[in-house]
């Protein structure tokens, strides 16, 4: 993408740069009016975009099909708008009905779908020995099998971890820490890559590197 030449595009690019620098004025300098302005501007645009997308999607998914013959959609449309009674304390109880449907479906779908991939398959994968015979594969299998059992013991057993439980649960805790350490490393990659994108944009607008 080449550096824009049209005036409005150049103004837009520098506005974007300014918005970014106003946001970073807080961590890089101190709390200031510029940062607050940027923060509230973001919230206001986010709310507007949210509302517009909600309206356009409701039209596309519900209202338009209803006017084209799907008259049964009137029920969920009424229930959907009933959610807004949440804003009025006297009629708030009406919004429990659409929430009940959403909660029921959420739990129904989640519960029916979670057993196979998150429990059964994981247990099978844990206890299935490797097909390849090399020592490292067997060591890894032993680590995963013993590690998972001990970690699950640490996590799920609610009575005091003493006596015969003391050592497996301690081992489980250590293995969980290893998992969290890897998660932490990945978290840093995620956060730094987002920030690297912003550093790149900073240089691109100043024409130090190409856009």
């Amino acid at each position, binding site marked *: *993408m080449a550096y824009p030449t049209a005036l409005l595009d150049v103004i837009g690019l520098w506005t974007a740069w300014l918005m970014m620098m106003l946001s*970073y004025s807080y*961590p*890089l*300098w*101190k709390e200031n009016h510029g940062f607050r302005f940027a923060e509230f501007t973001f919230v206001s645009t986010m709310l507007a*975009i*949210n509302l517009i*997308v909600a309206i356009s*999607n409701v039209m*596309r*998914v519900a209202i*338009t*099909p209803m006017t084209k013959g799907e008259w049964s959609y009137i029920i969920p449309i009424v229930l959907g708008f009933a959610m807004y009674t949440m804003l009025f304390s006297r009629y708030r109880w009406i919004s429990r009905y659409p929430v009940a449907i*959403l909660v029921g*479906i*959420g739990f129904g*779908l*989640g519960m*029916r*779908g*979670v057993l*196979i*991939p998150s429990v059964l*398959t*994981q247990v*099978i*994968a844990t206890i299935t020995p490797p097909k390849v015979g090399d020592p490292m594969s067997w060591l890894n299998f032993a680590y995963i099998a013993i590690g998972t059992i001990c970690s699950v013991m640490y996590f799920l057993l609610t009575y005091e971890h003493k006596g015969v439980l003391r050592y497996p649960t301690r081992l489980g805790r250590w293995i969980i820490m290893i*998992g969290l350490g*890897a*998660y932490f490393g*990945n*978290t*840093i*990659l*995620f956060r*730094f*890559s*987002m*920030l*690297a*994108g912003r*550093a*790149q944009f*900073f*240089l691109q607008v100043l024409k*130090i*590197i190409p856009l």
Partner: protein
Amino acid sequence: MTKQETILDKMQKIDRRILYWVLFIGLMIPFVSPLGLPVAVTPSTVDLYKELTKVKTGEVIIINLAFGVSAWSECLPATVASTKLLFKQGAKIIFLGVHYDVDLTWAKIKDQVPAFKTLTYGKNYVYLGFYTGGEATVARLATSIRTVFPTDADKKSLDEIEMMKNVNVAKDIKLVLSSDTGDWCDYYIRQWRVPYGTPVGEIGIAMLGSSYMPHYQAGILFGMTVGVRGGAELEKLIGELGEATVTMDSINISHVMAIVAIGLANLGYAATVKRGGK
């Protein structure tokens, strides 16, 4: 009697703004003066790539754009690389997304994949737009795409779109590629993979590389890329280096800085403990 502060003590008390500036400037340097270190490819990315190369001409793929503009640096490069590869395979792609800025993401993908200039909308690819409703919508999508998307993003009926004529349920879809920052891959696993056997692949942020590793190891996911590094690996595999590869240089410097920071913190802590402090 006051203790004399050592240099380590002073470093513990350094103003955090100095740290932030050091990081911000450190992230910029590699863009000006690239290191160009090669990126080794991980098994999960290789498996994703291999599965995508098995896609035959005419098969329909769903790419779920479950990331917003804030996660472009993490998810966009791998999504772009996958799209390029799938178009080379002759696949037909359905794009849909769950963030309200998905239109911007779609525009960015179109901008970065040259194949869009030669391919025909409606014949080779279709953009259905934004959808919401969580797992219920994903479940409904598996049994009727037309209920969730009566029209595409430009309000054209799906019945009028050539590639959507015989496509309406999960069984019509060859595989799903979920590019996400949160739970959407889980929804596709629970509502597509488990009931209908539709293969699911993940292009996610780095943290999901940890969360979904058990799924990948257990064979639930056919492959996954991990953050911007996964994007760089996929770019290397398809032979077209792009934004992720450029960003990896910056990641190199920032990660070394993080290690130095952790090392200094622990050095200071060790010195404090040695002196009898806490």
